[in-house]
């Protein structure tokens, strides 16, 4: 997994609460058996005026110019500013894959849905929870300032605003370490394979009906 230490990038808004994973990447694109290539269909139903299909030439499709990501000022954005309960709905990891493939490195919101939040960390994407008031103020600042950029420092757990103000954020110690070092989580777990085997051996004795039936 790619690491995340420090990132400076342009911010783009998605100004609605409860953005669900169907909205992030509609179901017709889930039939792919790959992890990459979802970026052009990120927010497909909001972004384009026609109905999207897999294997389409997306550059030929009519754009919804009211949608933030289609506006020239947000071109190349790598930090997404969002509202409450971002990523609710399904467990599809295609949602963080699409955000990553588009070029986002971090998402800032007052709250995230659990499974989506978890999935982000597996893909080098940093979800940052800030208070609703702070997120409101960021939306205002973003609306007023073209080319609005933020610096995110994971090591220091802070976001530096253009005026130099620093906002701190909380993050789980395990996830932080994984992101900073770009750790292979499976490899990390398998370092405990003796503990897993020992547990399994005892568990098999205690609950034999759970084994060897399928």
């Amino acid at each position, binding site marked *: 997994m790619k690491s995340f230490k420090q990132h400076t990038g342009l911010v783009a808004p998605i100004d*609605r*609460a*409860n953005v*669900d994973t*169907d*909205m992030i990447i*509609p*179901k017709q694109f*889930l*039939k*792919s*058996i*790959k*992890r990459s290539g979802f970026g052009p269909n990120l927010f497909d*139903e909001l972004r384009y005026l026609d*109905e999207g299909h*897999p*294997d389409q030439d997306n550059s030929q499709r009519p754009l919804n110019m009211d949608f933030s990501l289609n506006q020239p000022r947000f071109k190349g954005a790598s930090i997404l500013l969002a*509202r*409450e*309960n971002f990523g*609710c*709905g*399904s*467990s*599809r*990891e295609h949602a*963080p894959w699409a955000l990553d493939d588009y070029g986002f490195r971090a998402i800032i919101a007052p*709250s995230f*849905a*659990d*499974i989506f939040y*978890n*999935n982000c960390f*597996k*893909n080098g994407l940093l979800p940052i929870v800030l208070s609703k008031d702070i997120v409101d103020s960021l939306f205002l600042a973003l609306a007023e300032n073209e080319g609005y950029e933020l610096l995110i420092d994971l090591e220091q757990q802070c976001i530096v605003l253009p005026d130099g103000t620093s906002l701190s954020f909380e993050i*789980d*110690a*395990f996830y932080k*370490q994984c992101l900073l070092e770009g750790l*292979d*989580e*499976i490899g990390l*777990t*398998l370092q*405990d*394979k003796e*503990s*897993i085997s020992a*547990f*399994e051996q005892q*568990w098999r004795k205690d*609950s*034999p*009906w*759970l*084994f*060897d*039936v*399928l």
Partner: protein
Amino acid sequence: MAGKTLYDKLWDSHLVKQREDGSALLYIDRHLLHEVTSPQAFEGLRLAGRKPWRIDANLATADHNVPTTTSERAGGIAAISDSVARIQVQTLDDNCEAFGISEYKMNDAGQGIVHVIGPEQGATLPGMTVVCGDSHTATHGALGALAHGIGTSEVEHVLASQCLVAKKMKNMLVRVDGELGIGVTAKDVVLAVIARLGTAGGTGYAIEFGGDVFRTMSMEGRMTVCNMAIEAGARVGMVAVDDITLDYVKGRKFAPTGELWERAVANWQTLHSDDNAVFDAVIELRGEDIQPQVSWGTSPEMVLPVSALVPDPEQMDDPVKREGATRALSYMGLKAGQPLTDIKLDRVFIGSCTNSRIEDLRAAAAVARGRKVAANVKQVLIVPGSQAVKAQAEAEQLDQIFIDAGMEWREPGCSMCLAMNADKLGAGEHCASTSNRNFEGRQGNGGRTHLVGPAMAAAAAVTGHFVDVRELMSNETA
């Protein structure tokens, strides 16, 4: 000392290692796989040169994008007309074969929606930890199991290590005491709970459903309730083990027998929250207060009793709710103050991991019997949750009731719940659906989903608009 909740017990019994950073390794007993969220996980295993840790913990089936028409199904995988879906279904078969994983293939007798076949086959049991790359995995919590959805990276992680890196959630009790009125179902209960909690109210919690209403509810009903825990933000929903659970599990294909059954039962009988257990949050509703529900908006929390009027966003104090409701009414093509019973339906979908079990089909058939689909309804899809449910329904001749009413009797799969196959809504079409999500575009680009229970869906199909199903029932008794 405070007692333990059901969730505490299940967590503790599966804890391999508590790490200093607060994360933990949790042992996984059962891993369910399907075609959509597994291919990248198998690919990851291959690239890293890893093997599954414990083959017999895994069970796979094809459900999300299999076709549901009998003609298209009959030709097997080669006949799946959508080439991208065909590759995905074939890839699951290939991966299961290559890694030696048990699979119910598309046309096998055990095939069905993954959350229907797990309990049905006894492949998911009380006291297990169950995961699947699907957010509706909480369904299996109805058995007194700790079950939740995971992403594809975690699918790979569980395949490789039989463990999940997890953090303990908080405990929430949703207590519904009293009795449900006639015609009020498990779906209405869970929709009413979601209306109360909100779509994110359960975030970070494991929910246990307790109280009189759940104690007397069938296993099918409990599955419907636990299935939708995620629509309130909670990854986990659970119901304590009781005699109803044990009666359901006994005799299932993969359930223990003989002496092992006795041992298992002794263990399972401890799977309830202690009397002095402390919950971090408690939500209480009364069964008598719950009416048949209909969702009017684009989030499962936007739901009201069928007798209600479409709400007026201007009357909402919370600006986030107001904006959400305004957007929802515009998307749904509804006006504030309009009775829900005035909403005309274009299509009706009865199926999904929420409501496609035999009890659901019986409830829908009871309403459809001797009636005809209303003229304005273009299509009514009845999609059984599994091959076994389909066979049972046909043995009871429920299929004939549906066909006589002008409805379509289909092959098992996820179908129009998420519209990955050809079963979907056209733009602007209203659908009474027994599924779990009414998000924008969920059932087809521009489609308008209204979540209801199976009897309410059947009632909408035969009248052409929403109606309190109890009105049709009272006609029958009169």
